[in-house]
């Protein structure tokens, strides 16, 4: 039972639009243990990325605002820090890599100088020493001829190479937490595997925690120690990866797994989850998943009351009335440091 590195507690981030307030993240809690990978899974628009941006306080304001909650990094609430302190955290303590390696590097500077900039900002290392460090980082992320690549511009590198440069830049200041926002979505499958291997290897080497944001369950299976499944701005199921893949509890998670092909299974059509993701301006009453849920669509309880997240087994949370053991389960908060490792 180690103290978590990052604890997100009851975070709410809303966007004020002309059509009304969009509750992009509506009261989510989770923890990331030191040296572990926590994966946040969900479809497009469910609030995964907004959660990541909220942790770094990079949500554009206006229209976005963090309404309530806490983001505790080693017990210190990031939402309370001054802008100057927050800049020290960004890059220094928490680094981030993005979905699109093709556009995440500034086209007018060489790859090396962008790593040097991060090193300058956080470690105060300048000149030849910073250059040496940058070359060393490029070598660590597996870029051949790092000294030569140092002086190349982003357009001279392939997508996978650029993502490696992004990783080198993110890790150059020795952060404790790496937020990876769909780091492999834009890469082709062989390069995906390479980048995931790299992240895993770096995690082992430098005791790094990773908050992995993805919609790809294969990536989750490959990387994650613990998983939070998000649906319509909330976490609907949260547990360790082993138990989630062995026996998904929430009907939405079950639906996700059924929609994937399984090795050795003879099947002509994959199951789909019926219906569409609800419009965040007009979420359905009751459980937000009930119109699409195979079990709950006709149950009065599901249609009228939204199930809060409850601990259905030790270290295992779900938000579904029909989940076995849900009735009478304690409504604990996953960020209350009770999560088993």
């Amino acid at each position, binding site marked *: 039972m180690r103290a978590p590195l990052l604890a997100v507690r009851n975070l709410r981030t809303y966007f004020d639009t002309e059509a009304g307030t969009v509750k992009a993240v509506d009261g989510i809690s989770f923890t990331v243990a030191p040296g572990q990978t926590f994966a946040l899974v969900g479809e497009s628009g469910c609030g995964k990325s907004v959660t990541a941006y909220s942790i770094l306080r990079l949500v554009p304001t206006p229209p976005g605002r963090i309404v309530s909650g806490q983001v505790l990094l080693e017990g210190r609430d990031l939402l309370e820090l001054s802008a100057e302190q927050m800049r020290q955290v960004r890059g220094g303590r928490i*680094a981030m890599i993005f979905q699109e390696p093709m*556009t*995440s590097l500034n*086209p007018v500077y060489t790859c090396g100088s962008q790593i040097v900039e991060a090193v300058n*900002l956080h470690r105060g290392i300048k000149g030849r020493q910073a250059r040496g460090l940058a070359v060393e980082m490029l070598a660590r992320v597996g870029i051949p001829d790092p000294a030569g690549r140092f002086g190349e511009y982003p357009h001279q590198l392939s997508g996978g190479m650029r993502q490696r440069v992004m990783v080198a830049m993110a890790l150059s*200041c020795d952060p404790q937490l790496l937020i990876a926002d769909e780091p492999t979505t834009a890469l082709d499958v062989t390069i995906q595997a390479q980048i995931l291997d790299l992240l895993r290897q770096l995690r082992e080497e430098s005791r790094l925690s990773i908050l992995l944001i993805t919609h790809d369950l294969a990536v989750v299976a490959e990387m994650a120690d613990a998983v939070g499944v998000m649906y319509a701005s909330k976490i609907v199921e949260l547990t360790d990866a082993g138990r989630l893949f062995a026996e998904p509890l929430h009907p939405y998670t079950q639906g996700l797994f059924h929609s994937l092909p399984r090795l050795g299974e003879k099947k002509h059509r994959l199951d789909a989850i019926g219906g569409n993701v609800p419009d965040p301006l007009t979420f359905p009453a009751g459980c937000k998943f009930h119109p699409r849920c195979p079990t709950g669509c006709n149950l009065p309880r599901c249609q009228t009351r939204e199930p809060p997240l409850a601990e259905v087994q030790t270290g295992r949370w779900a938000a579904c009335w029909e989940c076995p053991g849900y009735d009478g389960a304690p409504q604990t908060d996953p960020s209350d440091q009770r999560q088993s490792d």
Partner: protein
Amino acid sequence: MGVMICIFVVGMGYWAAHLAGVHWPCDPTRPDPPSQLLPPSVQHPLGTDDLGRDTFSRILLGAHVSLLIGFVAVGISIVIGVIIGSISGYFGGWVDTIIMRFVDMMMCIPTFFLILTVAAMVRPSIWYVAVVIGLTGWMGASRLVRAEFLTLRETDYVQAARAIGAAAPRIIFRHILPNALPPVFVSAVLGVSGAILAEASLSYLGFGVQPPDPSWGNIIADGRQYILDAWWLIVFPGAAIFVTTLAFYVTGEGLRVALDPKETKQI
């Protein structure tokens, strides 16, 4: 190819302007009454004016003055425009609204009459003319920079710069501005010809460069009384303005093509 010729013309103009510093072929400001209003000849290739001064020498020295005013005025307007446009585009919101309404207001003022008013109040000199033209011409550049910033501030690499903890000034000047500059360069080069025309108009009206210093505008202004007898006093400085302006336009257009990655045409 055309662009190369134009860069050559512009370069020649400035080189000629430097030559004029050594008063070649004749002293452009010393009157020589016996040789007044001579038509083009071997000794005076572009003729002489009413005071007997060599028109060719005066056009060369005038080139120096006109180009200097063009560059200084554009330099001033680009610096102001870039700073104001960057702030407006990066911060957006009410900052943007206030700055852009101010720009709209500045654009509504008939610039030329503003220049005339200011020029009438201060002692006319080359530097004042340049500063006044620069101070009234930055709005276009600021709008251009703002528009670039509006798109660039949403790019992933700017977000990435924020995520490594860069502060606003660093993001503005180091990460966004270098990407926003190519269209600004183009508008600057086009702006030089605008400034040269503005100076010529001012000098023609007598509010610009004052005699005995020659500028292309005041050579034409002086020559207009003799338009029927001495056509060379109007045609040659007019042609100088025309060729220079055209050269800057074509150079600007060529620069636009050269800096635009989507344009595949070879220049």
